[in-house]
């Protein structure tokens, strides 16, 4: 099964307060359904 590449896992996301967190933290505790939207609108 395909795995997330380590470099991708470390890419930062920003929350609504502009605080960064690595992408990998979204699936560390549970299965994560990541919905990437086209844009906000």
């Amino acid at each position, binding site marked *: *099964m*395909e*795995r*997330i*590449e380590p*470099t*991708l*896992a470390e*890419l*930062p*996301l*920003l*929350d*609504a*307060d*502009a605080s960064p*967190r690595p*992408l*990998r933290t*979204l*699936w*560390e*505790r*549970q*299965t*994560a*359904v*990541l*919905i*990437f*939207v*086209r*844009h*906000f*609108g």
Partner: protein
Amino acid sequence: VQVHRARDAFHARGAEVFVIGNGAPHLARAFREDLGLEVPLYTDPTLATYRALRFRRGVGATLLSARTWAHALRATRGGFLQGRTQGDAWQLGGVVVVRPDGTIAYRHASAEAGDHPPLDALLAAAGPAPAATSIGLSGPASSP
């Protein structure tokens, strides 16, 4: 939005739903408030994650796609009106289901705007459905 409404079903499978956009953080906040989203919301203004996941980008797959307009018409008929674009108008999205060990259980890259994966496929990728509550067929135990 459909997946957001099914959040409880994902929770029952031990999964969490995250929405990730590409506008500025303050736009993410407004997006959450406008739609009443309760799922965790993040943004990647650099689009680095979109590129790494090989999500499509371009005017041909967005504005110039006849299927995009068909999806938009269907969404409008369903009562969903798109607001002002806040982010990269040419970027398409997608959905990835990732397990705690980093394996990708499901991947969908939108071919055009409005191309979404079926909810059933996402639920199946999230994990097995919880066992149904056992209901006795013989009725309540009778007292002697």
